[in-house]
């Protein structure tokens, strides 16, 4: 189906669960996604649907135990990451797979200057001298458009604004010698809207310049529209719809995707309306989900079969797939 030459990362049938005191939580179930070189894939879904667990599973940042991989494989540049030894995965982190986090306030070490933190990354992976590393840090600061980089690298994180810190985080993620994949876990959630737009522009810009792929995790459909090439919609640990970004917005076929789009304030049907539409109900308890579709209890289109078995993949075109028994009814509406 896909050209494997271009494939950077593919997650195949991943099942990831957490053993908690009150039972086993199947955080990710039977998930398959793939990212091509130079592509931005966004994972969309509400809190607790397994987006971050998936992202952290790639470079194995989930705490294990209690977390464990039940089955599946994560192939990155031809190697199964789940079969790598601890030292090998450590080498991969920060060199080929880098990550930026949601909270720029807490994701930088408060006791070191931002410049020395970036220089440390260079020194760890490339074994160059401190002064060379600092020069490279200045270059990166210039690349992420931090004003007066020569001075800013000597600042402590608390002396920078939120947007500036997020730029510093991105610079740190770019300090890898051969950036392949950048995982961005809700990189703009903690920022205000104008800064959000700047950061997203910056990420798009850098993607072109550096030639990396981005796995972007978000619950903000506005961010999706801005950034994504392809979109994977997740619900309760499962993939429910996957498509090119255009198809997701124009022809959503899963009731959950439709619900997400309908709750956007910018949706045209809200012209002059005073209330937003919301998806009724809440996410089911992840410990008690049976074999049926997890969205069944909140779904307007649910029929008898939905509670019994999870639907099979329906391919609508070569890149658009949906996992719903009643996608035709969604299409009719």
């Amino acid at each position: 189906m896909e050209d494997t030459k271009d494939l950077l990362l593919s997650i195949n049938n991943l099942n990831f669960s957490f053993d908690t005191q009150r039972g086993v939580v199947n955080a990710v179930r039977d998930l398959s996604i793939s990212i091509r070189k130079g592509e931005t894939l966004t994972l969309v879904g509400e809190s607790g649907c397994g987006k971050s667990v998936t992202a952290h599973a790639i470079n194995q940042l989930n705490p294990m135990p209690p977390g464990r991989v039940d089955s599946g494989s994560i192939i990155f540049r031809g190697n199964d990451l789940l079969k790598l030894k601890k030292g090998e995965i450590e080498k991969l982190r920060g060199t080929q797979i880098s990550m930026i986090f949601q909270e720029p306030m807490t994701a930088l070490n408060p006791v070191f200057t931002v410049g020395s933190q970036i220089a440390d990354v260079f020194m760890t992976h490339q074994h160059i001298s401190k002064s060379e590393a600092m020069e490279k840090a200045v270059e990166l600061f210039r690349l992420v458009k931090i004003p007066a980089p020569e001075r800013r690298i000597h600042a402590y994180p608390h002396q920078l604004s939120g947007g500036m810190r997020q730029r510093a985080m991105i610079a740190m993620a770019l300090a890898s010698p051969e950036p392949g994949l950048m995982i961005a876990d809700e990189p703009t959630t903690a920022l205000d809207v104008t800064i959000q737009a700047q950061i997203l522009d910056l990420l798009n810009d850098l993607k072109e310049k550096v030639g990396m792929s981005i796995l972007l995790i978000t619950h903000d459909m506005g961010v999706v529209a801005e950034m994504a090439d392809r979109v994977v919609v997740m619900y309760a640990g499962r993939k429910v719809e996957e498509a090119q970004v255009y198809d997701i917005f124009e022809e959503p076929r899963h009731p959950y995707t439709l619900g997400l789009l309908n709750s956007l304030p910018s949706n045209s049907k809200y012209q002059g309306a005073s209330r937003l539409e919301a998806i009724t109900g809440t996410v089911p308890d992840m410990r008690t989900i049976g074999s049926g579709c997890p969205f069944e209890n909140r779904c307007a289109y649910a029929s008898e079969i939905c509670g019994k078995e999870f639907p099979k993949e329906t391919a609508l075109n070569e890149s658009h797939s949906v996992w719903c028994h009643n996608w035709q009814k969604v299409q009719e509406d």
Partner: protein
Amino acid sequence: MKTTEVLEVPRIKEPTPLQETWYHLKKNTGAMIGLGIISIFILMAIFAPLISPRDPLAQEVSERMTPLMTNGYILGSDDLGRDMLSRLIYGARISMTIGVVSVGISLFFGIIIGVTSAFYGGVFDKIVMRLIDIMLAFPYILLTIVIVSILGPSLTNAMVAIGISQVPRYARVVRASVLAEKENDYVLAEKALGASNFELMFLTILPNCLSPTIVQATLGIGEAILNSAGLSFLGLGAQPPTPEWGLMIASSKQFITNAWWIVTLPGIAILLAVLGFNLFGDGLRDILDPKMRN
């Protein structure tokens, strides 16, 4: 065409953490008094050969128990005719060494134990902390006496014993702050950048846990000085004729009625040194704990 104008950022010198601490320290009277006392003792220790008027070990039998300010003995002489002032000055050297070395020993093991057990957690943490609890259950003096009697009485062994007996305290302080710090995102971020567990523990997390540790260490130096004086008094630490303050008190206690200065002056020296470190440590705690700072 859009032109971007580069604005000149005014050059404001950002204070380093050290400068900031100094700024708050200057406003804390107690800490400054403590720092003054400590500085005097440290200078005394460093320049002992230059400032002491006589040899601290030289006995002048004809001038035994000379009172204060007599015959050129500013602080009198002891029961063997040795100059008290010189002995006190050289005593500072010994006490400062004891304080620093034994706290250094405690810190070294305390940090390793505290950081690893908090970082790895689980069964390892439970076992280590129960062992630490067992050590804490013994009174320190009992513990040091046991260690010294195994190693044999000498100043070096006293330092080791005091150092080891205080390890549990540092381990607990370090563990508590590592537990709080290790959940922060920056630890995960460093991990995502390829840091090994060793780097995470000692280069990422530990620097964030230094404030409480520094406070504990400062207070600990005073305590170590007191403890070593106690051990020497019991005959388990420094051996005669070393001018150690605790030993000086022990070897002259029978003269308290007819030559009070021989007993009292070393006592005052101990008091001042311990007071200095405690004042300074308390001040540091006020400054380094953000909750206490306004």
